[in-house]
């Protein structure tokens, strides 16, 4: 055997693969890590000083302390509501013979996708202490002299947020109940257990982790919902952490350090919640052992099914039908106090919302282009991070994956504080432009895109790309001609999953917009302050329509997505 005389193997340090993926990593660091770094530095008083006094102030100043207590109380309240509403509905739809189960399921989904600040606006129309439609009805029927219900209260905030977040408990419990194989229950019945004994001793323990996980998720989401907290809480002078952070930054001069410290407190609460939620949901794994061949048992309720239906109808009426109904009616009425009739019908409010009102029209335009831009950036970065995680052996890819998931635990208000601190001093003048909103949206929703693309990539076996490489295609060619075409429906879903929440984003926008960069949510928020209820409702209906259509599209695409790759095996 002769000695090899060969040129050394060409090392591709700066090949297109490293270039593309490296760029995505830099973008992720710029969008997520850099603002988060500033949030921590800001809380420590940088650049002026280095101190822990901001944390001291966060816990001792009365306004801050009250906000913290209110936020915790809010979490407890919504968590409780979430369980009381979510669990019975999930059980009724998943396991009982109650009529109208499909409709209830769809309406829960509808209450979930309706932006909660719109539900809050609807309930001001319904339950405002003087003019509220329900209050006026109650006064007319029972002869109260005033009230009797007032949405501008702590219970009002808990209620409005509760009827949004109970969907988390509902969906997790529903899928857990659906995944219990009937053999588990039948085994108990064969051993002589009665129906209620089976439910209590077999079903409940099996789905308990899902319930706990759902309730925790509801609580975490409640803490961060700036919209209802501001729209209902501020007039009632009830302050929560996000609204307190907003006030701290809107004050003159802005108290950055205090806002950052409060943000970190909010983040800590969120992370503790997410940690607990993960802990509970991981124990859930044994429920899903049944896999695909799950047959679930339907329980016959007899006459009780009508009572259950009444309860379920009440919940979805409160969470979806009434708020969306009243927003729609108001949007089409000349006079929102008068009852609906043909003579009271008008399209004028849509005219002003979409065309003549400067702020509203600009808001719609800005929301569309921001949502599209953020969806594209988040999808691209998410795709690259998912690819790095699943297809390469890069050291530190797990860290990148965590970083891409981090914003999931960051309330919009917190993200905005971080972005503000990070870019306000940067010489590139993006503060006060639409770019700062694009950065905040992209950063906030990168996790949604990453998770979605990751699920898509898991369905596409790596050998499909490898087959391209060994047949002569470069990395770029195998991406363009094999992976991207195959992943296209999944990438579109990722795009939409970011577009939808970005389109109606409020909690980060409120801290970052300026005149000229208003979004649809800002238009709604500001016009509401000005008392232009009808135009607000027209905008709200428009927003819900856009969100609804795109969500339906996601649903259809996700259902079809599994089909083409089945042939791959």
């Amino acid at each position: 055997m002769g000695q090899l005389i060969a040129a050394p193997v060409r090392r591709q340090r700066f090949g297109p693969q490293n270039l593309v993926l490296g760029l995505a990593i830099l973008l992720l660091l710029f969008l997520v890590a850099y603002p988060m770094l500033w949030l921590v530095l800001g809380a420590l008083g940088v650049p002026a000083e280095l101190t822990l006094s901001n944390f001291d102030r966060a816990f001792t100043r009365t306004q801050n302390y009250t906000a913290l207590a209110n936020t915790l109380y809010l979490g407890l309240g919504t968590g409780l509501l979430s369980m009381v509403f979510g669990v019975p509905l999930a059980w009724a739809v998943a396991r009982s013979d109650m009529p109208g189960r499909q409709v209830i399921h769809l309406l829960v989904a509808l209450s979930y996708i309706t932006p909660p600040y719109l539900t809050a606006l609807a309930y001001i129309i319904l339950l405002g202490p003087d003019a509220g439609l329900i209050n006026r009805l109650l006064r007319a029927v029972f002869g109260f002299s005033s009230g009797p219900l007032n949405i501008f209260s702590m219970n009002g905030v808990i209620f409005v947020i509760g009827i949004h977040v109970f969907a988390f408990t509902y969906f997790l419990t529903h899928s857990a109940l659906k995944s219990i194989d009937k053999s588990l229950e039948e085994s108990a019945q064969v051993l002589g257990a009665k129906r209620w004994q089976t439910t209590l001793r077999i079903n409940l323990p099996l789905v308990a982790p899902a319930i706990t996980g759902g309730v925790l998720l509801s609580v975490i989401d409640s803490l961060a919902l700036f919209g209802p907290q501001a729209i209902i809480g501020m007039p009632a002078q009830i302050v929560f952490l996000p609204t307190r952070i907003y006030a701290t930054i809107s004050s003159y001069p802005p108290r950055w350090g205090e806002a950052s410290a409060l943000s970190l407190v909010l983040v800590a609460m969120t992370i503790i919640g997410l940690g607990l939620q993960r802990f509970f949901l991981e124990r859930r794994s044994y429920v899903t052992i049944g896999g695909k061949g799950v047959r679930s048992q339907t329980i016959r309720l007899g006459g009780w099914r009508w009572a259950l239906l009444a309860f379920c109808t009440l919940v979805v009426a409160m969470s979806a039908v009434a708020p969306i109904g009243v927003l729609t009616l108001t949007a089409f009425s000349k006079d929102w106090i008068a009852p609906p009739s043909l003579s009271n019908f008008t399209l004028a409010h849509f005219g002003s919302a979409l065309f003549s009102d400067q702020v509203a029209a600009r808001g719609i335009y800005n929301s569309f282009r921001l949502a599209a831009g953020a969806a594209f950036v988040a999808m691209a970065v998410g795709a690259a991070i998912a690819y790095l995680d699943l297809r390469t052996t890069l050291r530190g890819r797990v860290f990148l994956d965590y970083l891409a998931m981090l914003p999931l635990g960051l309330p919009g208000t917190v993200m905005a504080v971080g972005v503000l601190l990070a870019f306000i001093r940067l010489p590139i003048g993006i503060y006060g432009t639409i770019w700062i909103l694009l950065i905040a949206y992209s950063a906030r929703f990168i996790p949604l895109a990453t998770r979605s693309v990751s699920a898509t990539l898991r369905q596409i076996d790596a050998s499909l790309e490898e087959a391209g490489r060994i047949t002569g295609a470069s990395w770029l060619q195998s991406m363009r001609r094999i992976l991207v075409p195959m992943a296209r429906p999944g990438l579109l879903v990722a795009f939409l999953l970011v577009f939808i929440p970005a389109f109606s984003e409020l909690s980060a926008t409120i801290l970052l917009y300026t005149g000229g960069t208003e979004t649809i949510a800002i238009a709604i928020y500001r016009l509401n302050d000005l008392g232009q209820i009808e135009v607000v409702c027209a905008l709200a209906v428009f927003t819900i329509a856009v969100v609804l259509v795109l969500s339906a599209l996601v649903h259809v695409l996700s259902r079809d997505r599994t089909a083409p790759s089945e042939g791959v095996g």
Partner: protein
Amino acid sequence: MAFIDIDGIGKTFGHFQALTDICLSIKEREFVTFLGPSGCGKTTMLRTLAGFITPDAGTIAVDGRLLSEPGAALPPEQRQMGMVFQNYAIWPHMSVFENVAFGLRIARLPDAEVSMRVGRVLEAVGLEGLARRHPGQLSGGQQQRVALARSLVVEPKILLLDEPLSNLDAKLRERMRVELKALQRRTGITFIYVTHDQAEAMALSDRIVVFNKGRMQQQGSPRDIYERPANLFVADFMGLVNRISGAWAGPSQVRIGAHVLDVTSVASSRTGAVTVASRTGAVTVASRTGAVTVAIRPEALVPVTGPVEGRNLIEGTVLDSVFLGNIVDLSVDIGGAELHVQADRWCTLATGDPVRLAVDPAECVAMENE
């Protein structure tokens, strides 16, 4: 000089040592099979050859051209190899024609030549008339042929096959086996084939390389490896085997209970302490003391009535006898050990019958205990 030179390849994933010091020379037009249980390193070695994995140690060269060295590897697309994947990896968004034409299109061949070569290769693998189909409309066997056509159309010098038959049903697997072998002879392409199925390996290969725990255990012709396994792992993996514990009783004799057998020794690859004693002449060895294991294939034991010249004879009692159609399966108690015997189908021995078994000393392979 060999066509493919694999020299000292090593690879670790985290703390897992996937490959250790793999050295192998492969001739042009050879059909070589990497055989071993799952996780033994055979697929890792194949993927290192393809350029999907960069080795930590060692080099790979083809035709004198260095392809892989520690920390660097020529990307797969520049290696002029073909590969057939276990799941076929047919692109579901392309028709059969587009799948097969892919490599030619990447190489920017003119359309006329692409059509001609695709047509020719589809005919060669028996897929004529299916060019417009989409993968979802094909059976497993047809997808397999598409995968073959796709890698053959670019006329690679080396074709890598990663368990290509494992997803097919038994009958189809047998047919594809014959076709693969014929294809390899016809095209003269060097085939490197990975499987965990020893029957498949024996049917196809010029040479088998047995892997276990990331190490090469033995390489040789199918007959070599079956008849003279280098160690107990190989003996076990290549088929049914009786493993009988005994003690050395002479330079090439082992005592098992009351019997003393003439045996053949094969060097243990692990210790290297024993040299070969073959049919042609015994070679004395240092460590011929203490415990030893003798491996005997069940079909090498033949029930006989009288003495047979040059054979070991073992007396025993039939414990169980099962008629299986083509053979009769016997369990035989030989005092201190139980032997599994595959007798021909005319054997009428029943439980309790005394039996005398004859076995060629060359079939009694003595191995150091591991």
